[in-house]
């Protein structure tokens, strides 16, 4: 079946099987490997992407269900080489350990902050309940989301990084 999607803002047209899951479409057809297949059972959130701006688990969405819609993956967050504030905050607060859950965590956090731009710590924890970090590194993840919400990500220079953007500005990727 022919589908037309906007993936990270780019229009695409592909012939897909109806059973092709969105996560497999993104990884294998589009070559976007940020969304991971973790549990494959709608539990772990590693495959989280935005569908028309809201977070979804792409292992439980058919590509054909996304026909005509906007899909955003972690690859689509950075703007002209500058990290998205949530990405910058994850880097600053070291919101990852092994990194497998990170793209899904970041996308869930972007979705959460679009619905609730000023969450409490409890709201962040509840808002991320659909994402598992099996390294159990939740404290820094929550800290990163709160930092992104308050616009403090990138205000302090931390060892090994040069994240310097403040309050809405974006840190240079790889700078």
């Amino acid at each position, binding site marked *: 079946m022919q589908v037309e999607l906007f993936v990270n803002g780019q229009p695409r047209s592909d012939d897909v099987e109806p059973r092709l899951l969105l996560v497999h479409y993104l990884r294998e057809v589009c070559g976007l490997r940020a969304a991971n297949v973790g549990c494959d*059972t709608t539990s772990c959130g590693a495959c989280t992407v935005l569908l028309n701006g809201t977070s979804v688990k792409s292992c439980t969405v058919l590509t054909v269900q996304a026909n005509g819609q906007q899909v955003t993956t972690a690859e689509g967050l950075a703007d002209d080489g500058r990290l998205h504030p949530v990405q910058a905050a994850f880097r600053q607060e070291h919101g990852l350990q092994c990194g497998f859950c990170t793209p899904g965590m970041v996308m869930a956090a972007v979705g959460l902050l679009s619905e609730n731009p000023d969450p409490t710590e409890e709201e962040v924890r509840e808002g991320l309940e659909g994402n598992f970090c099996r390294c159990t590194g939740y404290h820094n993840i929550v800290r990163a989301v709160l930092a992104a919400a308050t616009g403090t990500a990138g205000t302090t220079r931390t060892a090994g990084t040069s994240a310097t953007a403040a309050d809405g500005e974006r840190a240079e990727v790889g700078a």
Partner: protein
Amino acid sequence: MIPAPFDYVAAQSPAHAVDLLDSLGDDAKLLAGGHSLLPMMKLRLAVPAVLIDIGRLAELTGIRAEDGELVIGAATPHATVATSGLAQADAPLLAHSAGLVGDPQIRHRGTIGGSLAHADPAADLPMALLALGGSVDVLGQAGTRNVAAEDFFTGFFETSLKPGELVTAVRVPRRPGAAWGYQKFVRRANDWAIVGAAAIDGRIALANMGPTPLRARAAEQALADGAGAAEAAELAAEGTEPGEDVHADRGYRRHLARVLTRRALEHRT
């Protein structure tokens, strides 16, 4: 895991979906959010030949007040119900219940009609609909009929939906200001209830205490006869035959039903 091959049709209207169901028969399944159906298809617990997508039909989404009832389109996602000002004001038990389904991503996709038609006895919304005394609008070739919650859930994952019918809307009485309670006992975040209890205006519904959501009628009768919350709640498990699993045996589930009913009657959430 990848589902077995199937054909996909996007329905153009609820009537079109009914026509497709009628012509395709048992080989076809309706797809809305797909958050119960797709996991079952991955496990080959469901192997439909055709999926009829009703998930983006405008006629099936949205929340409106209609006289004394709140009418929620069947394909309205849980997140929309949970955050709706109308639902929070007029049916706060329903909004609260929708906000406890799964996790945020699941609530963005899963739909109220899909959850009710799936009829998992451990799920939130069937219990909420029963507690509220709500009903569902059902469309088939013969037209629309309205089915009360009591008559809708007929068995373990079974409803009184006939072949070729689809749920178009969910109706609950508007009860702004009515005191209510909602209890869901889980071992993990975003899990199904080991036991659940919801209470409003002397009605009590239980989740996972049998093959369908159940009314705790003995406890309701005690309340009607003037008993207090603690006394009535002692009768919450009367007549129930809950299943046993790794989480809880029958006696423990009955204990939970009594404790959770008391808390629900104390209007705790």
